[in-house]
């Protein structure tokens, strides 16, 4: 093998292509650009300004950050609910003035003064809230008006009291601590911000009120139609905003102890800039506390830095304006193109070298017409019966894509009824010892239909989260087929953790080991992932001796054996490979062998493409999804093999007359029943020379099989 081939193998084996796409699909990636901008701004000004990282400078910055951060949080709260609050600047000035007034002229204690200030600023917020929330005025104009009015009020008050205030000077330990001190090196205002930010984060991301707030911002109309108290929530957002601004005003008063007519001038612009720079979207619904804090830091460092660089008077605004435009431009583009980018890079094909398939021209796999006389059941009355199963009373069950499990009555299966409605598409099915039907449901997980009352119960829909997986692999996305071991543990396959059920062809294109075998233990009710990185694990079947589990890896065209007990316990081995098609469900046969459905045949073109991952990646990026190479799922067959991995026979429908597409088959009392996921029918065919009394359930739980001898069939 040449060096280049080896390198290619190593590259696809070790380089995690798929991680990029998975990261792009996460919500937290929205923070990447604001974060990068913040880092760049800090680094640039850290390099330009002397002593930027000194303790004293950081202390000053931290103190200002506490104030600005609170105001930005206030603005963010309102932006999230789909509004805007331009009155923060003058409300801030009002809070600052009022605090100083209460302390210096009214001689109130700090605590009482602070409460008054928060209440009054909250009151200004309430006015905004009533106007915007209840009267449905436009937020921009309304808060613009309150901005002007509150500013004018502050100016009038200043005119009246500024002189008196400058004469007296309030001092107390608490007040000095607020203005000058803190916890060790950490300034007081920074601590306040930290506490509020933690609370705000929890409320926004983990609580009902926060979710309702975001829902209204996301779509006010839908929230209204859902019955959320839209007006009240919008109003309270403005109240919260006002109170936060009041708090910031108090901290500012503590720091500077002065009130001037330019206090908080233009603060609304800085806060708005910070909120948007951080990545909160103007118009609502998308944003977080972390984004607000990042934006606040960027703006603070930028404005302070430009000021300290001592450029001539216009440079500050110029740099600020430019930085702002650039950042918002990037953010807008990012938002718009993120999903396009995600679509392009999410599919990350890997190298898959398929061995030469076994021949179908001769030997046990020779194409024949044994399925051409299949008896057809429920033609046109069922859609996509992925799996079929029979109980001891010969009733036939199948899934349908409408989310039902349908039961057909023996002996001729001409009548049927909805046995249970599940909601998701039922895939693999299995009866447990008590006759309850266990079903893997695509997109939902593992469900059980009780025998007594046909009630549907969730068995499990999550497993343990693996440590380094970027996508959340604790949820079950595509539980596919299951089987039950003699000890009652349920082994089931999840075909892929990266795609939804109907995107299975894309998983085939990727041919990456995205699937896994999971075990649910009914005794402990715990679900654990047993084997990871399987290439579309599909059919699962416990061996006749109950000591191992067989499962198919569809795109790998092989069948594996996983040992549950015995000397090889915990080991995985390939039982049967080089299949000519994609194996699906595996089920027991009456003579101690196994049936496997081949859902589609391999084609040389796709096999070749699997050896060329770069080609497949180009295809995924440059052509429309309906033009990609997909596995063929039109013609398949049923194959019987034994415990040694020896293929014994195969059944085909060469002319594609009655039942060419097969995803599952069950042997039952001398008949073989066939299901296919793209079919509108179920097939059955008489088998020659098989045990006429053998049934699947008795093979697992009947008196003559398995460890539960003598218990007999469950009561009907």
């Amino acid at each position, binding site marked *: 093998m040449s060096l280049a081939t080896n390198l290619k193998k190593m590259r696809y084996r070790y380089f995690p292509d798929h991680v990029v796409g998975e990261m792009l699909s996460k919500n937290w990636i929205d923070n990447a650009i604001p974060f990068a901008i913040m880092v760049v701004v800090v680094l640039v000004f850290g390099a330009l300004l002397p002593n930027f990282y000194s303790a004293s400078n950081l202390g000053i910055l931290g103190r200002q950050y506490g104030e600005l951060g609170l105001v930005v949080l206030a603005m963010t709260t309102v932006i999230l609910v789909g509004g805007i609050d331009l009155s923060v600047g003058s409300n801030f000035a009002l809070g600052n003035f009022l605090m100083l007034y209460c302390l210096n002229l009214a001689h109130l204690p700090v605590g009482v003064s602070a409460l008054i200030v928060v209440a009054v600023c909250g009151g200004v917020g309430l006015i905004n809230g009533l106007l915007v929330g209840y009267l449905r005025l*436009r937020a*921009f*104009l309304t808060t613009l008006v309150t901005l002007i009015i509150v500013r*004018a009020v502050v*100016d009038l008050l200043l005119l009246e009291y500024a002189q008196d205030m400058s004469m007296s000077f309030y001092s107390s330990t608490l007040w000095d601590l607020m203005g000058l001190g803190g916890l060790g090196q950490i300034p007081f205002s920074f601590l306040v911000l930290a506490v509020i930010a933690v609370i705000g984060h929890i409320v926004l991301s983990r609580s009902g009120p926060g979710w309702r707030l975001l829902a209204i911002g996301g779509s006010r109309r839908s929230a209204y139609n859902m019955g959320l108290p839209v007006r009240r929530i919008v109003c309270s957002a403005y109240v919260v905003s006002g109170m936060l601004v009041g708090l910031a005003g108090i901290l500012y008063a503590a720091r500077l102890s002065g009130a001037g007519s330019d206090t908080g001038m233009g603060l609304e612009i800085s806060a708005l800039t910070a909120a948007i720079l951080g990545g909160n979207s*103007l118009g609502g619904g998308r944003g977080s506390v972390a984004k607000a804090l990042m934006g606040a830091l960027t703006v603070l460092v930028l404005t302070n830095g430009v000021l300290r660089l001592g450029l001539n008077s*216009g440079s500050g605004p*110029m740099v*600020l304006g430019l930085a702002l435009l650039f950042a918002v431009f990037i953010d807008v583009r990012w938002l718009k193109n993120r999903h396009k980018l995600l679509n392009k890079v999410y599919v990350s094909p890997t190298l898959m070298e398929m061995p030469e398939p076994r021949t179908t021209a001769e030997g046990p796999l020779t194409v024949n017409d044994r399925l051409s006389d299949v008896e057809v059941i429920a033609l046109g009355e069922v859609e996509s019966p992925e799996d079929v199963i029979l109980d001891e009373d010969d009733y036939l069950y199948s899934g349908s894509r409408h989310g039902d499990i349908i039961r057909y009555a023996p002996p001729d299966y001409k009548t049927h009824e909805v046995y249970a409605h599940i909601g998701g598409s039922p895939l693999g099915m299995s009866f447990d010892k008590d006759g309850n039907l266990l079903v893997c449901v695509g997109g939902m997980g593992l469900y059980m239909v009780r025998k007594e009352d046909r009630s549907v119960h969730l068995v499990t829909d999550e497993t343990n989260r693996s440590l380094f997986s970027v996508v959340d692999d604790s949820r079950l996305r595509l539980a596919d087929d299951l089987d039950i071991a003699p000890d009652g543990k349920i082994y089931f396959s999840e075909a892929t953790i990266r795609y939804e059920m109907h995107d299975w062809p894309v998983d085939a294109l990727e041919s990456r080991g995205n699937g896994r075998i999971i075990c649910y233990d009914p005794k402990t009710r715990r679900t654990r992932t047993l084997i990871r990185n399987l290439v579309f694990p599909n059919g699962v079947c416990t061996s006749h001796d109950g000591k191992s589990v067989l499962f198919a890896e569809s795109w790998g065209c092989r069948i594996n054996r996983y040992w549950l007990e015995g000397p090889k316990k915990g080991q995985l081995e390939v039982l049967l490979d080089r299949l000519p098609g994609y194996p699906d469900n595996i089920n027991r046969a009456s003579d101690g062998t196994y049936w496997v459905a081949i859902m589609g045949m391999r084609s040389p073109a796709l096999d070749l493409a699997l050896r060329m991952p770069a080609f497949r990646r180009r295809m995924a990026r440059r052509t429309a999804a309906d033009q990609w190479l997909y596995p063929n799922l039109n013609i398949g067959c049923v194959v019987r093999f034994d415990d040694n991995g020896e293929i014994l026979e195969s059944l085909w429908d060469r002319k594609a007359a009655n039942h060419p597409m097969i995803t599952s088959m069950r042997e039952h009392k001398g008949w073989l029943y066939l299901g296919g996921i793209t079919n509108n029918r179920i097939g059955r065919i008489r088998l020659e020379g098989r045990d006429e009394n053998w049934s699947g359930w008795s093979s697992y739980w009947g008196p003559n099989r398995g460890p539960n001898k003598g218990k007999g069939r469950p009561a009907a």
Partner: protein
Amino acid sequence: MRFPKRLGSLSQEQIVFLITICMFLVFSLTLDNFLATSNILSLLRSVAVLGILGLGMLIVVLGRGIDLSMVANMAISVAWTIQLVRVGMPLGWALTTGLGFSLLMSAITGVLIAYAEIPAIFATLAMGTFIYGFGRAHLITGTDVVYLPAEFGWASAIGQGKLAGIPVPILLAIAMAIIAYLFLRYSKLGWNIFNIGDNQSAARISGIPVRPVIVLKYVLSGGAAYVAGLITATAVQSMNTRIVNSNMIYDVILIVVLGGVSLSGGRGSVRNVIVGTLLIGVLVNGMTIMDIQYTIQNVIKSLILLLAIVADSLINPRDEQTGQQGDI
């Protein structure tokens, strides 16, 4: 709250117009000299600048946008013009350069909004900051206020001259109002602005060149800002760039919205702006005669704006089902 049916059929424009007439009558009866020709002319003259800025804003707002950079654009482009004349550039060239600068800046704003798809509020806010900063740092250095030199010649008549006894600013404002009216009412481009403001996606699908028209919108508002700036500067013999930090841009929005132009675009006309401008003119003039403090004037103006939009929302309540998402 239910209003009688006849009142319910009043539009915000009509309400504001009624308020204006009422105030006009009250002031005429109670204030001396209010009705004097000189006072009426000075009233009109004082709002001419605001009116011209309002026309520019109207065009932008009709196409569902907003231009917060108008005042900065006006201050810096005119201040630079004056500065150029001071350092010896011929008047014609200086005026052209200033206008060019103003149009260029607003074209950049337009491109940022139309092509880079930055929200208008934000793009114009940032451009306003940038224009002011750039102007102060590189075009007019060292001073806030640029004084009009004697070489300004005939152009000083823009703010100070009179034609047939009527001050030129009023005539200019009227001329621009007529042009804006004809443009919006009878030209295809004007219609396209309405269509874009009404429904941008529909406009795009029906083949209107949405992006170029948006750029044009901002260029027109830049032009209006330059004219308004020239009037301001020549009237008081100087251009104070600190005007950028004042509430002026809010006043411009005020007169546009007051008259009943919808900030979500597609609804409004020149008449609305005239009504809004007149209300502010009457109000400010009356209050000035009554010698009311500037800050209190601000409060009163704001309260009236609030009253107008509250009345609008009570008479034409906004429905939760039809409210536009992201409309702030």
